[in-house]
């Protein structure tokens, strides 16, 4: 796309955006960084402490275990949702009324408030009043996500899959739809097998949307708060306490502004780092492929 008009007056167009984002992001972020390097005893008493809070936070064993749980959770859901989403998108007929209605249905879980998602599964998986819980009970499994950490994890993962796989499906389907039928026709004439069609036609086209899909799922799973909070409250014990919840407890509950702020900054950097690693590795790989 030829964007050859150089015009610095264009800044006027982005001014509204900048103002809004400054109010929503920059100012608060500056505040957080500010707090993270100070010890605030009360409104008038504050000391500059440098990186003390950072050191303390990074050494906190509860943070470390929350981080490990978080990374484990993100890895599991990504490893399931991305391939599953692609496979479902491949299974959908290219067009037709069935596909249209299915896509609408698939979009629904994406638009349900996250606490309702939690509530739905909270009820659904209960051993006494939930369809799933009772069904499992019928085949001999006493399912109790409130008491058993393994059950809690299974329920959380099942819930996240239910909630977010559709995003991958919709993105992958959109990518597949952009492939002109001529490519499939040519492949048929070439005698290509289904696997070859996937590998040489579909996968390269999907690369763009998949990058978006993985990036979004990675970011959002790292930030997950509401659904596990509603479903398990972080328990039993700490077994399903992930990073966001840990931070929220510290920041709002305990009034430890300094450490909470330091944790916030670290958290943000972790998310950025992981996204950056993923993004550059994909971009670099693509560049290498094109040579």
């Amino acid at each position, binding site marked *: 796309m030829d964007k050859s008009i150089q015009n610095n007056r264009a800044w006027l167009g982005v001014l509204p955006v900048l103002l809004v984002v400054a109010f929503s992001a920059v100012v608060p972020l500056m505040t957080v960084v500010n707090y993270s390097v100070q010890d605030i005893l009360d409104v008038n008493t504050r000391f500059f402490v440098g990186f003390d809070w950072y050191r303390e936070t990074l050494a906190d064993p509860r943070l470390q275990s929350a981080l490990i749980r978080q990374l484990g959770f993100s890895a599991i859901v990504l490893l399931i949702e991305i391939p599953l989403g692609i496979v479902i998108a491949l299974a959908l007929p290219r067009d037709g009324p069935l596909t249209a209605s299915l896509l609408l249905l698939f979009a629904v879980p994406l638009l349900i408030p996250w606490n309702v998602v939690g509530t739905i599964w909270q009820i659904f998986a209960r051993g006494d009043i939930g369809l799933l819980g009772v069904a499992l009970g019928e085949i001999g499994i006493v399912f109790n996500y409130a008491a058993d950490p393994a059950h809690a994890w299974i329920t959380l993962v099942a819930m996240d899959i239910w909630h977010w796989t559709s995003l991958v499906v919709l993105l992958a389907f959109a990518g597949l739809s952009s492939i002109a039928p*001529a*490519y499939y*026709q040519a492949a048929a004439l070439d005698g290509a097998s289904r696997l070859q069609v996937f590998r*040489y*036609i579909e996968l390269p086209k999907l690369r763009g949307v998949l990058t978006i899909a993985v990036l979004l799922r990675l970011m959002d799973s790292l930030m997950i708060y509401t659904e596990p909070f509603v479903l398990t409250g972080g328990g039993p014990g700490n077994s399903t306490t992930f990073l966001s919840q840990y931070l929220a407890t510290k920041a709002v509950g305990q009034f430890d502004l300094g450490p909470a702020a330091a944790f916030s900054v670290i958290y943000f950097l972790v998310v950025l780092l992981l996204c950056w690693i993923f993004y550059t590795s994909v971009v670099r790989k693509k560049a290498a*492929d094109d040579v």
Partner: protein
Amino acid sequence: MAEIVLENVSYTYPGESAPTLAGLNLTIEHGRAHALLGASGAGKTTMLNLLSGLLHPSSGRILFDGVDVSLLDARARDVALVFQFPVLYESLSVIENLVFPLMNRGWQRTDAVSRAVEISTELGIEGIHDAKPAVLSLFQKQLVAIGKSLMRDDVDLVLLDEPLTAVEPSIKWRLRQTLTRLQQSHGLTMVYVTHDQTEALTFAEEVSVMARGTILQTGKPVDIFQSPNCRFVGHFIGSPGMQFVDCDVADRTARLTGHNSDEVAVALDLPNGHYQLGARVEWVRVRREPGSWQVQGSTILGTEVGEARVLLTLTMGDQKLQAQATGKWSVGDNVNVIFDRFILFDDEKAVVNG
């Protein structure tokens, strides 16, 4: 390469009430370069898909060398297809693209590669074997696509769907030349679909003009040009197309409709009635003598031996004609018109060549 026969082929798209193609009959001899010419919507693409096996005829038969292939899929028929835009595997290099169809049919890699080298040398693309399509020009990519279609040596038919559309006008002719060369040297039966008559008339040995789901006329380019069998073909072919004036036939004599009723032809074997006289601009001669026609306008085309060449617009009552002439003419000049050649059309069909 095979002889291709379409026997009374019709096709109706599922859900449509009217057939897209109705009762087509066509024979393409083996080793022929054949063009399907028509505007969009004429049914050319449907024809192409029926030939390639992507669609099966609703009725009628398609025969390759006498074998009924109507129900065979694209994979089972031995056809090659070149699309409007280069359809290549973007993640594979040129050489990998070329050997792909052969590897899938069990060829040994060394044989496949040597054939790929052979074909690419013929096309002039031997230098880009290891390149990926993304770095090639559109022209090069289309050459690779054409090369891919020629890799298999057992192909009955090569189909091309407007292959020059995406290519820049300045190099269209190169691609066209390449195709002609290949067709002749390999003796390929080629069916070339296009809406561009220049392409069709210069490339093909035989042209079928299509409109509204039927083939109006099949013939050599010169025949189609000189002797269209219906008004549509006359008008469609040529730039400018054929022009028409009203005329009447009475007592076996044809006269132009108009208050002076110029006689055009005698001893015609036609019933009395109203007809259309078709004449190309080149067939109309203007004479500086009193006649039924008046000069209404004149456009300079160029100069010839010192004199101006002009395109004259002539009128006679409601009728209008264009003709080429030399010299100077003024609006209002009274002139006489002679038809060196004309065709009489009754409704849509041609009835007489004069």
